[in-house]
């Protein structure tokens, strides 16, 4: 029963996928579970195998072995219209007119011309680009073309949106606009796979992440769970004290100290303290005996920290 429940709630399941190119293994028994309605960050250094995996999900290439289920069904050609894909290497026909091009690409995704026109009107109005219909792509700026690219990706209302480095090439204003559109689509039920090197956008947008390194999946799970797993039981502490030496003597006996910095209005002593096996209360007790505590926060590992730690290990 419980298995079934989980099953129905995953938009995508990748099971033991292997892909090799000649002697090179691009994906080695990779399995991923992407819950319905999530924004799923697919992370990994260059050449880790992310693009290979994304291409397999888009049925651009076939896996050597393994299975992929989209919304519980084995991946097949009918699923092309359920997926919207914005590749990292993207572009449009430069000499084709915007409207004609969008219609063409939407029809290739399986939309009727009528539906495509309707959807296109909606998006053009929403992004306030109605005047571009008869312009050629080469007449548009790069940022404008990127907007069109986004419209083309989402026009056919896919259940699953796969975005590879979606913000590259956008200026901050347009990047924000697109980010809001992605979040809005997610609220309406679209699941999003998000492959990027920009950790701050992962931190900001993703609820689940997976990390692929050297063809293997190393981490996967809810972002908060992953962070819990990678917490080091370290606290950032700010303290106002007259007797620094006494404080340091007390602390070094029980804990490991290092320097840290955070924003503050006081001119206090700032420390990062690793608790080891001790509890936060033990640390607090030590601190309050020596001075005025102004700052006491658990240091949560950032996605960036986790990424670098996992990849360099």
């Amino acid at each position: 029963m419980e298995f079934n429940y989980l099953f129905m709630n995953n938009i995508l399941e990748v099971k033991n996928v292997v892909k090799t190119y000649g002697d090179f293994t691009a994906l080695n028994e990779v399995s991923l579970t992407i819950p319905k309605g999530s924004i799923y960050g697919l992370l990994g250094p260059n050449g880790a195998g992310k693009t290979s995996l994304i291409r397999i999900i888009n049925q651009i290439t076939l896996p050597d072995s393994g299975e992929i289920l989209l919304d519980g069904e084995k991946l097949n050609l009918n699923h092309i219209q359920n997926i919207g894909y914005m590749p990292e290497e993207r572009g449009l026909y430069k000499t084709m007119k915007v409207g004609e091009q969008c219609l063409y690409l939407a029809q290739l995704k399986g939309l009727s011309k009528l539906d495509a026109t309707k959807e296109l009107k909606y998006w053009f109005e929403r992004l306030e680009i109605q005047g571009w219909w008869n312009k050629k792509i080469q007449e548009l700026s790069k940022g404008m073309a990127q907007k069109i690219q986004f419209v083309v990706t989402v026009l056919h209302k896919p259940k699953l949106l796969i975005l590879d480095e979606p913000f590259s090439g956008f200026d901050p204003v347009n990047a924000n606009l697109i980010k809001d559109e992605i979040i809005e689509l997610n609220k309406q039920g679209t699941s999003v796979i998000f492959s990027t090197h920009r950790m701050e956008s992962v931190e900001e947008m993703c609820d689940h992440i997976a990390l692929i390194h050297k063809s293997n999946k190393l981490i996967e799970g809810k972002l908060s769970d992953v962070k819990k797993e990678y917490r080091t039981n370290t606290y950032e502490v700010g303290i106002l004290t007259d007797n620094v030496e006494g404080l340091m003597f007390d602390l070094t006996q029980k804990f490991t100290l290092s320097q840290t910095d955070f924003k503050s209005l006081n001119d206090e002593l700032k420390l990062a303290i690793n608790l080891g096996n001790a509890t936060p209360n033990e640390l607090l007790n030590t601190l309050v005996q020596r001075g005025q505590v102004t700052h006491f926060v658990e240091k949560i590992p950032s996605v960036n920290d986790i990424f670098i730690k996992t990849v360099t290990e």
Partner: protein
Amino acid sequence: MSKLTLIIRREFLAKVRNKSFIVMTFLSPLLFVGIGVFVGFLSTMKPEVKTIAVHDETGNYFKLLKNSDEYHYTDFSLIDVKTLKDSIISEAYEGLLLIPKKANPDSLAKSIDYISNDSPDFDIISDLEKTIGQSITQQKYASNGLDTLKIKELKSMVAINIKKASGEKSIQGLNWIKTIAGGAFGYLIMMFIVLYGNMVMRSVIEEKTSRIIEVIISSVKPFQLMMGKIIGTSLAGILQFLIWALLGLSAMFILSSVFGVQVGATGAQSQQAMEMASKNMSNVQLYFQEIWNLPIATLLVSFMLYFIGGYFLYSSFYAAIGAAVDNETDSQQFLLPIILPLILGVYIGFFTVINDPHGTIATVFSMIPLTSPIVMMMRIPFGVPLWQIVISLVLLFGTFILVVWFASKIYRVGILMYGKKPSWKELYKWSKF
């Protein structure tokens, strides 16, 4: 609409709407006619008159030399040879003809000199040889007591009447029309293959460089995209050819009626009537009649079939090459082996087919798929048995299927490869991915 139809439609429209297509379609026939007129005009222009100095010590031959449009002769028999030679070097005259005084006509025949700065025109030398030779011969007739007038009278000229088995009167040079028609069609097919094959390649490269390729193949299979591109482009080619054929045929109709040739008379009317008609025809009319007698329908239909077959075959290569490279400059090393069989086809057409349209070499190369579109098109005006055409077409289309299968494998891998100029070995490796 199916995805393939959508792609075909886009590719077709992209080609046809292109300004260069419109210009090419309507301008190049004009250009051809223009070049023809220009060449004709050039050949009617009077050449510059060249003067040849003649130093004739015998005094017998200068009077035999007739001035032509191109060459004038001046008598300098009284001036010494050395001065004349100097004037040749200073380019006052085109050449100097020296006829020495000899007692014996046989030794005279061997001691005539022509001196010039540039190597002389072949025609003028053979003219001089003929004129002087005839005169010496006549002298020898006379000295041997032969009646030169009688000999002239007895000389008979033979002109063989050329007729067809069907009984029509024919004139020399009609084979020449078949040669031109065959050559034109063969050349046209090569031009179309190279032109439209290149278009396919450029369009593949464009999709790669504009980076739209991955967007498209997340919606359609690479094979569909490749085939759609090849078919769509070929439709543009066929449209262009039809426009040209229409223009050509209407020009023929107009010219025929100007010269008063009855179009379609040959097929329908009885042999006798045809013979009656052709008796009254001038040569120009006969030429036109002969053009209409060419298997025009067969030519047009087989042009279509060979164009489609040949173009499909070659453009799959072109598509694979386009996928393998990042820009047109890199494509050169791969294009050469593709162009070679085409050039071979044209050479065989012009050197072998024209001399011996149904010989072994012509027949074999009109069967081999890489050359058959060109060579067979050149043979068809001379009449080719249907079974040969059928075999050659079956071979052509069979090979096409094999090549498309192979090319699509390279295409599939190549379109997603960037920044690397692959080697032949790598292309082979790709085909096995």
